[in-house]
């Protein structure tokens, strides 16, 4: 066996195939089993999908590269749990395509930032972080409030996610653009359908304090305010035992 390579290294293609086989062992034994093991992803039947407005905000979050400085992954460490709240569960990212766990924290973790601060604060902070946190090094995103949100392509975004397994209904896809408008415009007729389709606990507010126009600020704040709140799974006291069943 120890002499095999004397023969193998004389055949280029054979050597190449052998390298591929050996190198894939790590992936095969470490990653592949996660698809069959039951407890890889916890159960969260109460979890809702992102509304079209939140999804638009998520796309802005990705476009602006927020993930480069903010993680969305509270690790199973005491100091992180004491600072940010319950550690992140895999199920909380089940509708994230792609996931935004991140690996670098120039700013704080955002996995449970939803509901932690007010809409006005988020709006002021994104507009110019130094207005509320003088020592902040985060860039200012002044254009968000001045840029009208593009909503006509939202049905296609929802349809694409449905292909990837996110349970959007045909009705959700059909009404995506009007739902996005309604969620940021509380008194409009479009607002009524949002709660029916996405659940009674859905926030319907003028997130940027200006109900007239739906801006990118509305979408991004709506997304930040739902982070960590799509399901209560992480707050359930019995999840420790549930995970081991």
């Amino acid at each position, binding site marked *: 066996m120890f002499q095999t390579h004397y023969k193998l290294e004389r055949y280029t293609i054979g050597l190449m195939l052998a390298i591929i086989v050996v190198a894939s062992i790590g992936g095969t034994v470490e990653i592949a089993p996660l698809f069959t*093991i*039951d407890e890889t992803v916890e159960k969260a039947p109460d979890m809702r999908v992102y509304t079209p407005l939140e999804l638009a905000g998520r796309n802005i979050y990705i476009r602006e590269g927020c993930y480069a400085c903010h993680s969305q992954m509270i690790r199973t460490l005491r100091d992180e749990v*004491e600072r940010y709240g319950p550690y992140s569960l895999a199920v909380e990212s089940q509708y994230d395509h792609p996931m935004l766990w991140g690996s670098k924290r120039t700013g704080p973790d955002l996995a449970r930032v939803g509901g*932690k601060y*007010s809409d006005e604060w988020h709006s002021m902070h994104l507009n110019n972080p130094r207005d509320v946190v003088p020592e902040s090094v985060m860039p200012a995103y002044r254009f968000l409030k001045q840029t009208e949100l593009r909503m006509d392509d939202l049905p296609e975004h929802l349809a694409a996610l449905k292909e990837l397994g996110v349970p959007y209904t045909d009705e959700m896809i059909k009404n995506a653009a009007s739902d996005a408008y309604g969620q940021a415009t509380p008194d409009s007729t479009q607002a009524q359908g949002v709660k029916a389709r996405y659940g009674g606990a859905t926030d319907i507010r003028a997130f940027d304090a200006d109900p007239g126009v739906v801006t990118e600020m509305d979408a991004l704040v709506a997304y930040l305010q739902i982070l960590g709140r799509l399901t209560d799974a992480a707050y359930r006291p019995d999840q*420790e035992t549930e995970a081991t069943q």
Partner: protein
Amino acid sequence: MRVNERDSYTGHATTGHEWNDIKELNTRVPKPVWLFLVATFLFAVIYWVLMPAWPLGRTYSKGLLGADVHRDVAASLRDAAAQRSAWTTRLEREDFAAIQADKELMKYVRATGHALFGSDCAVCHGKNATGGPGFPDLVDNAWLWGGAPEAVFETIRVGVNSDHPDSRSSQMPAWGRDQMLDREAILNVVAYVRSLSHPEIASGPDAQKVVAGQKVFATNCSACHGEDAKGSKDTGAPDLTDSFWLYGGDEESIYRTVWDGRQGHMPTWEKRLTETDRKILTLYVLDLKQGAP
């Protein structure tokens, strides 16, 4: 290429490769490398037995030590809570006045409160709790909902205009935008409101505005702010006669407040922080105030 050729000088076999008469010796793998390989292999075998390792279809081998990160973090949180329990139980049991009088306990409150405040409150109220436009200063003497420990504790618990069912709720209507008052009436009432903290305005060039504004105030504003404009802790309506301004006390800021209305928002902390943590924050904030000029 001659395999198994021996190098005459060292006596080792060569690999059989030859580059411009230079040949490569085929020496043995050094012993330390073997040792290291064997040691890591043995370590792996032991680790497989002790720790979760092998996938078994829908489950996996749990290992003899029963290691589980979820349980570990829960245990470390319990340990930390137990370590702190020496003084947290006293914080839970004793009332605010007793804790404030206890120098030893207040040391813990200051240290823990500083960390909690920095992580949860400072982004709005500022690192030194001095607030900013729209975010109340916590070290001045103006309290919208009362400055007693119980009142501050309640505000932290339920928030202001939050989604908590018991939330404190307070709304200044948009008198101008919603067309309840015209521009002139608003300018008058702004002059009156300013004259409450700057008496010289009442006798200056705007004296007539102040008189007219007083009438506007009595019919529209006094329901919340009180006839004497001293505000109300029940509705969170600010005292307009003092020198503290949440949204700015200059003419333009007050005009904007009356025209567009205001609805401040403070989140509820009942779910996010434990009762003890909220008690610590209450005491910490009140302690900051005592240290402030």
